[in-house]
């Protein structure tokens, strides 16, 4: 049973990695298990300058899910490179940097900055950020903006670029095709769905930012559907995510066409979840008749 999987810039010992924003920069969870076990690590979003983020409360619990509106708090790309990446370099695990911004220039700046370090093996382009210049419309919900930011980042980056798609769109296939045309080496999907929860006592949204991103098992059927559709339309590798909690969930993502997966929200309840999934995965693959991860990819498409 081999769990190995290769994608542009990434030679993974297994397809399981923590999702951006749900693992910080690795330090805390390294108290629970050896980060060498992980296929890769996607670190928290990096912006040009340090960002404070949104007021609190920033999270709320929903049925089989949660809302978050952290607001991209991070120490800025220089801070990350200087203070966070050195810790991760002690591990043999590839690091994927999540790149965010409010303007195309900011994305480009951040992507360029990561050219200067050996601590990062690939970029995940987080296009679910609002574009300040375009009056707050999200890069990830506007086809032209999404293509443009992908193209511009590809132009400057020496790393393979995985564009992280927003599910808050009418046509996910169109977005996927667009960013692949613009040069994306791979896709990462899905980011969170915009949601809201009301505090009945206070009579206002629980999240200070009002809306937040919905993640967790609640959104898994949407992630699975979108990856299934996108897999039929484009030919680049996909990092799948959205509600993964178990090795069976990982297999479900592989079957619809994900080449690797990321685990987000589940880390909060079970800090050992990635490690446990990786240990369980060979048994699950075997139980369903597969002898490698590779073999399972896309196998949910063969019927009818």
């Amino acid at each position, binding site marked *: 049973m081999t769990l190995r999987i290769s994608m542009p810039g990434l030679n993974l010992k297994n397809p399981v990695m923590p999702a951006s*924003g*749900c*693992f*910080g920069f690795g*330090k*805390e*969870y390294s*108290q*629970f298990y050896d980060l060498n076990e992980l296929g890769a690590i996607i670190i*928290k979003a990096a912006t040009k300058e340090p960002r*404070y*983020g949104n007021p*609190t*409360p*920033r*999270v*709320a*619990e*929903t049925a*089989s*899910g*949660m809302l*978050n509106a*952290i607001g991209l*708090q991070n120490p800025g790309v220089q801070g990350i490179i200087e203070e966070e990446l050195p810790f991760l370099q002690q591990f043999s695990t590839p690091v994927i940097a999540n790149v965010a911004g409010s303007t195309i220039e900011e994305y480009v700046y951040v992507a360029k900055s990561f050219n200067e370090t050996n601590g990062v093996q690939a970029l995940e382009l987080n296009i679910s950020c609002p574009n300040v210049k375009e009056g707050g419309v999200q890069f990830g919900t506007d086809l032209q903006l999404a293509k443009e930011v992908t193209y511009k980042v590809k132009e400057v980056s020496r790393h393979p670029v995985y564009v992280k798609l927003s599910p808050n769109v009418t046509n996910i296939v169109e977005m996927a095709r667009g960013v692949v045309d613009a040069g994306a080496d791979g896709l990462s999907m899905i980011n969170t769905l915009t949601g809201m929860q009301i505090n009945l006592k206070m009579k206002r949204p*629980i999240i200070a930012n009002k809306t937040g991103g919905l993640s*967790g*098992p609640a959104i898994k059927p949407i992630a699975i559907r979108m990856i299934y559709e996108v897999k039929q339309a484009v030919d680049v590798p996909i990092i799948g995510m959205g509600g993964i909690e178990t090795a069976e969930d990982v297999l479900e993502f592989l079957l619809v066409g994900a080449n690797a997966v990321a685990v987000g*929200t589940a*880390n*909060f*309840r*079970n*800090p*050992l979840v990635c490690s446990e999934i990786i240990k369980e995965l060979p048994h699950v693959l075997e139980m369903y008749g597969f002898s490698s991860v590779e073999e399972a990819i896309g196998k949910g498409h063969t019927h009818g």
Partner: protein
Amino acid sequence: MERQLLPIIKQSQIAYETFEIVFRTSLAQQLKPGQFVHIALPNHILRRPISVANVNPIENTFTIIFKIFGDGTKMLSTYQVGNTLDVILPCGSHYPIEDLHVRKALIVGGGVGVPPLYYLAKTLKEKGVDVTSILGFQGKEHVFYEEKFQQLGDTHIATNDGSYGVKGFVTDVIKQIEPEFDYYFSCGPTPMLQAVTNVMGDKQGFISLEERMGCGVGTCYACIVPLKSNPEKSLKICKDGPVFAANEVVLG
């Protein structure tokens, strides 16, 4: 920090919708006053943070006290002796009493802010510190641990509705009895902490904060609080806190 499956050794209701649970764990002796544990509940995506209210280092047990607030604490209240719970511990910072020269301590607690202060007061008392406690509750049937605090020193109770002790807030009691102390230690709802730190002015003290948490270990940035010295910067309540120096952070 570890994730452990902990057996419940004791469980009882100690006041209106207020419960006490005693767990056994190999990590009991490591738990310090002010720290919390992070408890997983079936079918809840997020864990619930609950303060350590007492530790018995001989029995290797620790106590939590919680009030029913929503779904999670309601479910927690149904757990009985013999059940186990999945707990991450120890979490967060503690009252840094080993580094302080305290002779007289003032404890100011409100509602579910009272539990961590009991463990603190007990520890201070064991170190020979003189402890005065001022505890606020909603009403008579919400009061708990009064006698236990009294065994540690002078204890004053305030209730919002005046059904027990002084009618009013803990700050009313502070103004009334003008306690003497080198350090104060406070935990409770944010409005209470604001009132307390206001009354205290420049006096030295430590407060413990609450915020909705994602991870509870420092990875998700859900639980931040701005620094007073530079509100553009922040600390994480789950990791840098929940205990902070009284004037270190911006409240509310």
